[in-house]
């Protein structure tokens, strides 16, 4: 008298772990990356050359450094549009200090310090005064770049010491540039921070429901403040690398970089409204954007057309899963 139906095993989930992985954003993005890589290799005979590919990593390394911190910030439901202006201001501060004979370690400290200070200022306005981050950072974007423009006028700072060039022009080993190494280390650090720590859980919690997070004992404003600090610090680091690579500071430095950083984050599968997203996604997105711009560059596609292409790619990759979902329904 056994009724087997009562003991029939019910699955925990309707899809298996492998199925979910295969349908994930990261895998879709990885497929896009592979497709672009293949396309580039077929379209240009110069693409498959390690030195060329090594040069091409500069197309994304500095932006990706900021994108990691920006990903956390966006997951937590905030945004920082002043990052490119922070890069400009940090670079200007370093150039200014250079006039007084500050050496390489001092310059790096000043670059990172300026980034931190700008991040703290943004964080203060958002968390203490309760202002919307998009409004605050649009304001500070003009403010930071304005200060930089006043200091620089139409001139430029140059003559950075030779030892300073290591960050943007140095190689760790063979074709691995210092910037690429920094990028890789940061990818691991931010990956662990977001996916393996309490702080990371708090970031997701705040992004999904800040009120619930607050009542669950998460110190919401403190986490937000730290995220703005981190973003400022990363912008400072990007400024060190970019300035080191260029060996000069001009008012137009990093112009328009904030949108490329946000594009990278969103392409990486981070929900622009907050609450979800992963660091591996952002890493792949960084490569996708680097490969696209380098590949199109090899075909001598003008920059204007290139930005149309990146925009279309962004919309396409975001719209595709939704379209497929609608078609299946």
């Amino acid at each position, binding site marked *: 008298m056994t009724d087997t139906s009562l003991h029939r095993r019910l699955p925990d989930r309707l899809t298996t772990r492998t199925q979910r992985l295969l349908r994930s954003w990261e895998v879709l993005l990885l497929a896009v990356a592979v497709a672009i890589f293949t396309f580039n290799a077929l379209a240009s005979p*110069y693409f498959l050359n390690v030195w060329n590919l090594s040069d091409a990593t500069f197309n994304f390394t500095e932006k990706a450094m900021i994108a990691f911190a920006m990903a956390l910030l966006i997951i937590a439901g905030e945004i920082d549009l002043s990052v490119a202006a922070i890069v400009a201001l940090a670079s200007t501060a370093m150039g200014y200090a250079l006039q007084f004979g500050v050496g390489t370690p001092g310059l790096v400290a000043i670059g990172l310090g300026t980034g931190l200070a700008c991040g703290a200022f943004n964080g203060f306005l958002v968390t203490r005064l309760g202002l919307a981050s998009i409004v605050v950072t649009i304001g500070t974007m003009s403010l930071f770049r304005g200060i930089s423009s006043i200091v620089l006028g139409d001139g430029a700072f140059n003559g950075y010491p030779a030892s300073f060039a290591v960050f943007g022009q140095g190689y760790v080993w063979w074709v691995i540039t210092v910037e690429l190494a920094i990028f890789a280390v940061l990818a691991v650090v931010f990956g662990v921070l977001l996916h393996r720590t309490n702080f990371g859980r708090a970031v997701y919690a705040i992004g999904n429901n800040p009120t619930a997070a607050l009542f669950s004992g998460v110190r919401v404003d403190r986490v937000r403040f730290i995220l703005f600090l981190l973003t400022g610090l990363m912008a400072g680091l990007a400024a060190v690398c970019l300035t080191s690579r260029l060996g000069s500071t001009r008012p137009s430095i990093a112009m328009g970089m904030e949108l490329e950083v946000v594009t990278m984050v969103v392409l990486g599968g981070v929900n622009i409204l907050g609450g979800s997203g992963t660091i591996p996604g952002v890493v792949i997105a960084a490569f996708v954007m680097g490969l696209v711009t*380098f590949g199109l560059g090899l075909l001598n596609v003008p*920059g204007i057309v290139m930005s149309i292409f990146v925009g279309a790619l962004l919309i396409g990759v975001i719209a595709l899963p939704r379209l497929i979902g609608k078609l299946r329904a």
Partner: protein
Amino acid sequence: MRVTMKLISATAMAAALLANPAMAQDDVRIALVVKALGIGFFDAAAKGAEEAAAELGNVELIYTGPTDTTAEGQIEVINSLIAQQVDAIAISSNDTDALVPALQKAMERGITVISWDSGVAPAGRQMHLNPSSNPLIGNMIVKLAADHLPDGGDVAVLSATSTSTNQNIWIEEMTKVLPEYPGINVVGTVYGDDLADKSYREATGLMQTYPDLKAIIAPTSVGIVAAAQAVVDAGKVGQVNVTGLGLPSEMAGAIESGASQSFAIWNPIDLGYSATMLAYELSQNGAVAEAGAEIPMGRMGTLTLDENMEGAMADPFVYDASNIEEFKSIF
């Protein structure tokens, strides 16, 4: 994974379409790199470069540049040109120093590198092409006035600020060649500070102080427009000729009203043409960039390099009623 498959097959198809090499590999590839795309001045330079490429025959011209006038954008472009192993790069730079490492790398890989219009530090290029030179400009501004004054007369100079380096050098060069223009009497120099309203007042003041004034020479694009307006407003069109250095787009009205008979500025078409010719000579015909070298540049004659490996292309180009229509839409 139907999505991915579709994506891959679609891109593979696109790749197959694009992979078909349209160009013959033995063509000489010269890249004209500009500060940013979408600027009329540089589009005109590219037109000149195309003309040179057509004249040379076996040249494939790559006209490229970043979207913003940033040094990092130009470095991305240079890196992709190095990767493609182009034969020569002719660049108008966004930053004198920042491009040096990237361009040095290009030269190490056997690519000819020259700068034009806006230069690169000597370490980052083989030579630089200036559109003109200070003596040529100094001579041109007085010649423009003298050409329309066969019997001579009083002329005055409306400059930018009294500390503007460029303008001061040009006026100094002009003073040097004045003896070659007998009858031309420079009665004074005033400063409009490159502000439209101040330049306008100074020009009006000149006409009141010197009732016999025949010409105003303004070697500044702000001053020349303001002076032309002052002449129109004073009802002195036909009596006082405004000339100097200006932009065709801003001066079209003054030429039309007759306040200005002619003025001068570099010709971007000639500049792009010459840069391409020079890049070709250095890369293919064994021309060597060294002090005193004379390098041919097609219809523009030859370029003589000084000890900084710089050379001046030509006299500033004269714009008047005959060609203003063509150039006013360019820059």
